[in-house]
């Protein structure tokens, strides 16, 4: 079926609202307007203003009231309008939402999904292009989903909403409008998302998620022309981090490149590199490399193409790990 990620997300919310009357949507401009990106288009008129709720302009209020609704047995799905507006809700996310199940000794469940359109590449002004996922992956108690494909957008959002834990759900906004054909299937019951090898390969494992997955697939195609075979892994979830899938791949390839838009220092890439080194030390032929956004505030949009990891920077890293490999092989021969 020809569709877009926007439509898949819309259908996912629609189906969740339809199947469970405890599902409730909250956010700024999500009702009458259908959201600034139109992810919730048409849902208020179908399900009513008590299911699809325009909220006052206050993110802490949105997340905090979602917590209260969860106490009452609801399964709130919250929209944060843009990544950069997540931070006013940080305390409610980190001290409350993440911890309430633990703090209540398991008596209270917090099945709250927080949808965040994130990342750059759409020419926006400041605060509209950020990638704050590491903050949440570092925070125990939260699950962090970051789908890249249209199918995953649909099914993982269903999984997030069905999950009894809070899920921070990152939507790669620059992929919202891309047309594709996709079959939108409800997730298998009890299946929780795992990392996925979206393109098998032999020489280098390249790992990404969300908006960068496509860059990696492009890189794999480009590398193929040069005779290098990349294994592309789409992480899909950042918490839990499916390190097993990455480790198995690296044990075969001996080389790893991790890619994300977020800042480098203590990002997801750092975690993966550290963990893979620990698990696969004897298999590694080269140090794992990271290709990431720089450690700078998100730059003005006319500079963002530099900041975002692109095909060339990924290929450069791939070349680096391969060159060393070849040098070593050459020496051995």
């Amino acid at each position, binding site marked *: 079926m020809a569709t877009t990620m926007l439509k898949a997300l819309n259908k996912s919310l629609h189906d969740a609202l339809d199947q469970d009357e405890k599902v409730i949507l909250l956010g700024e401009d999500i009702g009458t307007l259908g959201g600034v990106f139109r992810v919730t288009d048409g849902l208020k008129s179908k399900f009513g203003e008590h299911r699809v709720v325009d909220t006052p302009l206050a993110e802490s209020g949105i997340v905090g009231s979602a917590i*209260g609704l969860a106490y009452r047995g609801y399964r709130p799905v919250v929209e944060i309008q843009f990544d950069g507006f997540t931070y006013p809700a940080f305390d409610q996310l980190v001290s409350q939402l993440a911890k309430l199940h633990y703090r209540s*000794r398991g008596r209270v469940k917090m099945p709250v999904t927080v949808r965040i359109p994130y990342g750059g590449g759409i020419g926006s002004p400041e605060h509209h292009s950020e990638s704050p996922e590491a903050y949440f992956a570092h925070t125990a108690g939260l699950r962090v989903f970051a789908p890249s494909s249209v199918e995953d957008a649909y099914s993982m959002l269903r999984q997030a909403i069905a999950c009894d834990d809070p899920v921070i759900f990152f939507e790669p906004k620059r992929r919202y409008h891309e047309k594709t054909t996709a079959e939108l299937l409800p997730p298998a019951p009890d299946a929780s998302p795992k990392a996925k090898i979206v393109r098998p390969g032999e020489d280098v494992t390249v790992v990404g998620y969300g908006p960068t997955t496509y860059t990696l697939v492009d890189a794999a195609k480009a590398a193929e022309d040069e005779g290098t075979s990349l294994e592309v892994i789409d992480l899909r979830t950042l918490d839990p981090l499916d390190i097993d899938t990455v480790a198995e791949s690296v044990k075969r390839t001996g080389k790893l490149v991790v890619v994300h838009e977020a800042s480098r220092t203590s990002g997801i890439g750092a975690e993966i590199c550290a963990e893979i080194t620990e698990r696969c030390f004897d298999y590694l032929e080269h140090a794992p490399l990271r290709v990431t956004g720089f450690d700078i505030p998100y730059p003005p949009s006319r500079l963002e193409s530099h900041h975002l990891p692109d095909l060339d920077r990924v290929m450069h890293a791939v070349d680096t790990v391969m060159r060393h490999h070849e040098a070593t092989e050459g020496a051995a021969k």
Partner: protein
Amino acid sequence: MSTQHIDVAAGCLPTHQLLNVDGKRIPDEELDHYLKDLKEADLADFLRDMVVLRRMDNEATALQRQGQLGLWAPLLGQEAAQIGSVRATNDDDFIFPSYREHGVAWARGVKAEDLLSVWRGAQASGWDPNEVNIACQQIVIGSQALHAAGYGMGIKFDGGKQVSVAYFGDGATSQGDVNEAMVFAASYQAPVLFFCQNNQWAISEPVALQSRTQIADRAHGFGLKTWRVDGNDILAVYAATKAALNHARHGLGPAFIEAVTYRMGSHTTADDPTRYRKSEQLEEWKAKDPIDRLVKYLHEMGADVQSYEQRAQNAADDLAAKLREAITSMEDPKAEELFTNVYAEKHEPTERAAKNYLDYLADFEGGE
């Protein structure tokens, strides 16, 4: 201590007092109505409740000194504010308390061990929120007000008949979250009661540092139906809470009560109030003691006060014994609890971390 001398502007809302400091009943046109079902036996129960709470504070403070508790936050002086309000709620009204509402929890039937386990550091929380309709106690100032707003929105959306109640202090009114909670509750006209115990202090900071106007006036500006009451007058607190719950329950929107009271003890057992407040202020407020006042009123009514007091003492002794017993029999948590309830559903990294650590511990204890 110059900050203590800031004047708070006279408010535009009156302060309801139904019992004056001498225990004389003052008629109140608006609120008297809400006392009509209150019998002498209820007043005797109020007395018992307050006496028990005072004893609870004493015992817990002593247990903290003995190293049995890590910390305790006394509610000394705020007995009327807590009992008067919680006794006006229905059992299914859902309460979001701060860390000081031991009285509220006790009145809802929370067990002695569950009152203490958190303060001992033995457990992350005491009671089961769904059993007593009280959320986990909240230390992050003001956060729970938003949870109450959300819960109230839920009641509104699903047509329930409950009211959601947030308790917080005067200091908390400065937090963004409390203000946002008023905005949300007002926007949806949700059945939420914001119950502010203005005990004059936020640790060392006097209320005038937080607000140049009366807190009640601020709430009023948000469009909340608001009452300001003498918080050491249990009748005023009870009646205003009834009125406010009634308002909210009948779909008329959120309500707010500022109960003007005083924290007669330290902020917590870690605090030394002599560093920041004058003993005269404490003396002044001792004269307004909520328990004395009710006793005087009972005398005034001609009730058999002595027997009520005796019964209260017995209940207090009983609680004290239970608290000590609870503490001495309380087991320390096991290492595996570190990893329990981080997630509600299967989460492999947590399982792996738990296994690794418990294996390490076993090795360690076994070997070396």
